[in-house]
């Protein structure tokens, strides 16, 4: 992805370094964009909407880390919203495998609570957000449908 040509604001070198560090040390080790999206959303305070990462803040400062986390969150959101339904189902399967929870339990919880709604970044295109949420709803139904077709003795 080359978003450098679309950069609107002056480059903050600390934020850039924090972003690179975040990508190399953390995000590259997380499998799949959906896992990364949920991870980055968990770095955000529910009340203030500000991102925090204790380890990175010690090295790069609050503002730079906040900018880096926000940028990474938006980038992953855009990437996920552009994926096809089939690819998103693969992302969901990967998320289910990595969650450590039984697939049935996770699917039931996600269908009931829709926690992925709070995993989206702030101030994003409402239509792109609608598209991703709709695709996630469909993806969960695809997984549920596939599991219901699996014979019980397997």
């Amino acid at each position, binding site marked *: 992805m080359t978003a450098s040509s679309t950069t609107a604001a002056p480059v903050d070198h600390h934020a850039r370094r924090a*972003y690179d560090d975040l990508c190399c040390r953390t995000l*590259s080790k997380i499998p799949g964009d959906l896992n990364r999206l949920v991870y980055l959303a968990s770095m955000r305070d529910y009340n203030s909407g500000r991102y925090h990462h204790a380890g990175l803040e010690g090295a790069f400062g609050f503002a730079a880390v906040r*900018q880096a986390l926000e940028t990474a969150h938006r980038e992953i959101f855009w990437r996920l919203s552009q994926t*096809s339904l089939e690819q998103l189902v693969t992302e969901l399967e990967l998320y289910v495998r990595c969650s450590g929870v039984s697939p049935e339990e996770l699917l039931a919880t996600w269908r009931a609570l829709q926690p992925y709604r709070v995993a989206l970044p702030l101030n994003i295109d409402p239509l792109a957000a609608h598209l991703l949420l709709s695709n996630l709803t469909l993806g969960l*139904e695809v997984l549920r449908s596939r599991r219901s077709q699996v014979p019980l003795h397997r």
Partner: protein
Amino acid sequence: MNLLLLSCLVAALLGSALLRFLRADPGPADFDETHCPRARPPFVAEAVFSLRDWTFIQQQSSPLLNSLFVHERRALAIHWLRDCLAQIRAVRANHLHQSRHTSDLNVLSEAKLLLLFFYLAAMCRCLLVAVRLVHPSTPRAVALHIQKLAGKILPGQPPGLSRIPVTEISRNRV
């Protein structure tokens, strides 16, 4: 004779519409480029009217999934079309505001632009009806045509909106 009358009628209608367009209320005085909506990223219409996603859903052989897909995509298509209409209206109002402060208006290009605005709005309204009646993937070609034309009058929007340059995060898979 009938053709001549029809031509005169169409010319009169276009003329009055152009006059109305040029003399209409300019709207808020501070309406400028910053208030002008931006074009949606092109992948949105592609995804909303995607045939690939529909093929994938059909492969799952589940009637419930098929109907859920149609329901979801119909809602998305309506959202996209309403959004397009709102953007066209906003761009038209903005253009009107700017053109009222211009002394050397080119009537021909203004007429062409007016026709484009009317054509796009009419297409969006027709498609709003169509997506309620047929499968949401059916009017895909028309939707992409609207998006292409709307892209000519709306300022582009970068998909990333990044504030810092971004490097590719390696996509590790388990």
